[in-house]
């Protein structure tokens, strides 16, 4: 902090600030986030999952998904740390490869729905009127249909149309973002409407600023925290939905492994009781990832968007 000199009467003095000078709200938020132990734990778990899934398989000799009848349903051993499945494939390698798909699907569908949701939400909230009505009624329509049944129908159609399994992953991403954007657009629009009423936005009108500056220098920077928080929760939600779809055989299909369809493979009493290594690893992966993402998201919300409490 700068030293205080007696300035001329009426002149203000430096406000004593403990934090480093000119710390923006972003840097402050980051500092507070780093202090939040639970959120950092969540982040560590997510980071570990990503690292394991994307780097781990490089060190595994079993990534070719080759069927090996000699080692069907083997229990965990030194050779196969998490055992093998009914076709003799290494479960650990498959869990990690499945993680690649699940995490990619979650991430990509989040990016897509954030993009669409933000764009439409900003347009609706900024221009209001007819555009707002159109966008929001479309969003309402999508929100009134429960998303899981909608996804089931989509999934069933995909199977009916015999979409090649290689493409299904991309189509699943698309499906998830179709059900993901309306909620986001709604929140972004709400935030836009509330920001418009802030005095500092009125000040931009009084100053006669151009629309472009109002939007990019004043509105968007205040939207980003909200978007980051929703986006984080969205990844978790998308991973969960993808797992459910795949579990029911409507999402990404075998032989491409995902956490959901791996659990499906253990979908009988015998496997459930006698071969727990088939379903516990993918199940635990889903559980740990989604929980960790949500914990991290909660922490993010606390530091970025303290008013937005559930």
């Amino acid at each position, binding site marked *: 902090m*700068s030293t205080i000199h007696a*300035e001329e009467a*009426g*002149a*203000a003095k*430096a*406000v004593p*600030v403990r934090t480093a*000078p*000119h*710390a*923006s*709200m972003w840097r402050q938020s980051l500092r507070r986030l780093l202090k939040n132990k639970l959120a950092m734990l969540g982040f560590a778990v997510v980071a570990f999952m990503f690292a394991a899934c994307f780097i781990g398989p490089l060190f595994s000799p079993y990534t070719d998904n080759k069927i090996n009848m000699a080692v069907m349903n083997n229990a965990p051993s030194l050779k196969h740390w998490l055992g093998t499945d009914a076709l003799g494939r290494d479960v650990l390698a498959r869990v990690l490869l499945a993680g690649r798909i699940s995490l990619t699907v979650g991430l990509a569908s989040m990016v897509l729905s954030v993009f669409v949701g933000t764009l439409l939400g900003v347009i609706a909230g900024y221009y209001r009127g007819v555009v707002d009505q159109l966008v929001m009624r479309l969003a309402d329509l999508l929100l009134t249909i429960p998303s899981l049944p909608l996804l089931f129908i989509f999934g069933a159609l995909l199977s009916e149309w015999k979409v090649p399994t290689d493409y299904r992953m991309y189509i699943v991403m698309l499906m998830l973002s179709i059900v993901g954007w309306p909620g986001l657009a709604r929140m972004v629009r709400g935030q836009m409407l509330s920001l418009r009423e*802030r*005095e*500092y936005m*009125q*000040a931009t*009108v*009084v*100053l*006669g*600023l*151009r629309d472009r*500056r109002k939007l990019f*220098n*004043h509105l968007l*920077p*205040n939207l980003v925290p909200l978007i980051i928080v929703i986006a984080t929760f969205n990844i978790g939600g998308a991973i969960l939905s993808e797992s459910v779809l795949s579990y029911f055989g409507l999402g990404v299909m075998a032989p491409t492994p995902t956490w959901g369809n791996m659990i499906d493979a253990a979908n009988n009493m015998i496997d459930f009781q006698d071969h727990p290594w088939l379903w516990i690893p993918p199940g635990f992966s889903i559980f740990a990832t989604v929980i960790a993402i949500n914990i991290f998201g909660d922490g993010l919300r606390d530091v970025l968007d303290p008013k937005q409490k559930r």
Partner: protein
Amino acid sequence: MTEAQALLEVNGLKKYFPIKSGLLSRTVGHVKAVDDISFSIKRGETFGLVGESGSGKSTVGRTILRLTDKTAGEVKFGGVDLYDLQPDELRRLRPKMQLIFQDPYSSLNPRVRIGDAIGEALLDHGLASPTEVRGRVLDVLNACGLSSYHFDRFPHEFSGGQRQRVGIARALVLNPDLIIADEPVSALDVSIQAQIINLFRGMQEKQGLTYLFISHDLSVVEHLCSHIGVMYLGTMMETGPRDELFRDPLHPYTKALLSAVPVPIPKLKRERIVLNGELPNPADPPPGCKFHTRCPFAVARCREEVPLFRDVGNDRKVACHLV
């Protein structure tokens, strides 16, 4: 008052807010926030608009600046009716008439550095080239009692008084003709309040500014303003030059208002006109003189006939049957 000299002229300004009700949100009535207000401010003058909450004084300021649309009347700024302007013409005229907000916390964007907040309008209006902006902002920061090192700081690093200085700097950098200040010192502590009031005065002397100073605090208004208007329930009750109005208030409401201000002199015996009751519902104002329900001098005529806002000489106008 000669019309030619007036920088701001407000004639018969009305602003009604619809009251909506029911399933189809039909308009069932109006809150007459501003109900036929007229006044004018000469160049270099400070006009104080006084009134209690619900008097519509802030709405007057906002309607003048077209932050909210008028219902009727005209607002002439330098001879031009602001309501005749196209959006882009209005935008380009805006630097000439600035607003200073009451709340120094919510009127600054928390994510914009002070220097950028003050300089961005200069850029947008092409009033300074990108290379000149920094110098212009530093000049105005210093003039407002802030320092160069504040340029890169964010609002949260400032105290309330300093933020209000930033708000003033943001307006002043545009070299405005008119500044509308909406309760600019109400949120500040006494010792800081005095600093800001002095800043307002100093700036006026230096730049020949014209102020419309909106406030509920009569002692501040007396200190700063050369002319004063008193509003009640959306209507102007009395206008006049400061000294005359404070020495000899004509309207009973002005009298009551003046006598209600607590004075920091203990055991001072003052004759106080205590008003009865509360402000009537602005959606359903009393007939006749709007003040008659609380006026200690009201007669039968006040209940029936709306008093005219008429000239009583000495540059004073008043709306009261009893004067």
